[in-house]
C-alpha cells in the first residue's frame, strides 16, 4: 500500500540525478528490492508505470531485481542466501548473523540521454 510513497521518492531521486547530469530524460532505471524490504515488487512496478507519466522518467524501462536475503554468520563466517525467513546460519546453527543484503530498496543505476 505504501508503494506509491516509495515511487514518489524514487521519481524525485531520478529527477535530481537527471538534473545533476544535465540529461533530458531517463531511459532505464534499475532498482534492487530486498525480499525483506516490505515492498511488493509487482505493486511497485505498477505504481512506477502509473506515476512516471509527465516526469523525466516517462518512457523509462523499469528493471526490478529482487534481492534474496543474504546473511553472514558472525561465528563461522559462512555466507548464505536464505530461502526461508529464518535468521540462522545453516552451517553452524548460530543465531549471531549479520544481514548482508535483502532488507533494503536501492536505486542501482540510471540510463539517461
Amino acid at each position, binding site marked *: 500500500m505504501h508503494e506509491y*510513497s516509495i515511487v514518489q521518492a524514487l521519481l*524525485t531521486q531520478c529527477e535530481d540525478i537527471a538534473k545533476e547530469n544535465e540529461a533530458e530524460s531517463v531511459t*532505464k532505471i534499475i532498482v534492487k528490492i530486498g525480499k525483506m524490504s516490505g515492498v511488493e515488487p509487482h505493486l511497485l512496478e505498477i505504481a512506477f508505470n502509473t506515476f512516471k507519466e509527465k516526469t523525466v522518467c516517462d518512457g523509462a524501462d523499469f528493471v526490478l531485481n529482487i534481492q534474496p536475503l543474504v546473511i553472514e554468520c558472525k561465528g563461522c563466517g559462512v555466507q548464505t542466501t536464505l530461502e526461508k*525467513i529464518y535468521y540462522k546460519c545453516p552451517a553452524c546453527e548460530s543465531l549471531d548473523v549479520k544481514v548482508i543484503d535483502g532488507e533494503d530498496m*536501492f*536505486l542501482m543505476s540510471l540510463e539517461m540521454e
Partner: protein
Amino acid sequence: MCKDCGCSITTNNHQHGHTHVDEFGREFTHVHDHEHDTLEHPHEGGHHHHHHGEDEHSHTHQAAHETLHHNPQLNDSKTIAVIKKILDKNDHEAHHNREHFNEHGVLAINLMSSPGSGKTTLLEKMAGLAPFKFGVIEGDLETSRDADRLIAKGISAVQIQTGSACHLDAFMVHKGLSDLAIADLDVCFIENVGNLVCPASYDVGSHLNIVLVSIPEGEDKIAKYPVMFRCADLILITKTDLLPYFQYDIECEKAEARKIKPNVDILEVNINDEASIKQVIEWIEFKRKMRN
C-alpha cells in the same frame, strides 16, 4: 571511470552515498562529494596521443570530453551507477529527528501494530504508573480521538492526520515534533498508523521499535508479517486474558518471532493486569537508563 566506485560519471566532482549503522543497528545513508584527480585520470578508449603538441592535444581532448557529456543534443546515452537507498531522504530526516531527541535526552519509541491491538490503551494505562514523563505523537488517517483520549489522561499528545497515508514517515514526525514540547519529556512515543505492513519500511527517527500483536488477531501474524516483526526491539503479545477463548499457541508464536529476530524481547500484556503493564514500563526504563 571513477576509481572509487567504478561508475562512469565523468565530472570531476560527484557524490557517493554510503551507509552508516548506528548503535541500534539502524542504517543511515549519507552522500559525500568526492573528487577525481584529473591528472591521474587515464584517457580511455584507445586514443592515440601524438607527441607533438601533447599539452594542447590533452587540453582539446579534455574539452571534447566535456562537450560530449554536457551537450544533451548529442543524444549520448549514458548509464550511471547510483546505489542509493530509495528512501534516503526519509532516512536523512529520520536521522535528524533522532538527533533532535538526543539533544533533549528523550528516548523515542515507535509503537506499531494492526489497528485495535491496544497501542493507545497501553499508553493510557501507563500514565499513572510510569516513573518517566512521556508524550505521544499520534498517527491516524482521520480524527484526533486517540490524542484526545491521551490528553484526557493528562498525557501531552499531538495528532498527525495522515489523510490516506498508511504509515508515518520521518517528515510527518518532524512536523509533529514542532507541536510537542519534548524538552520536558523523558520518553516520546510515536504511535504509528495501525498497519502491520507499511510502517515497517519507514524509519521515523525513533531509537526503539515496539510492535504489538493481540491474541484475537489470530495465530501466524508474526510469520505472515515478517518485515514488521524483524524491526521490533520488543514484541508485546496483548489481550492475553482472552487466551482461554482462542486457539493460540503463544509459545509457538514466540518461537516464530525469534526465527525472524533471534534477540527480540517479548512480553505478554493484559491490560487488566497492572503487573504486566509494569513489566513494559520496566523494559522502557531499563533501556532509558542504558542511554544515560
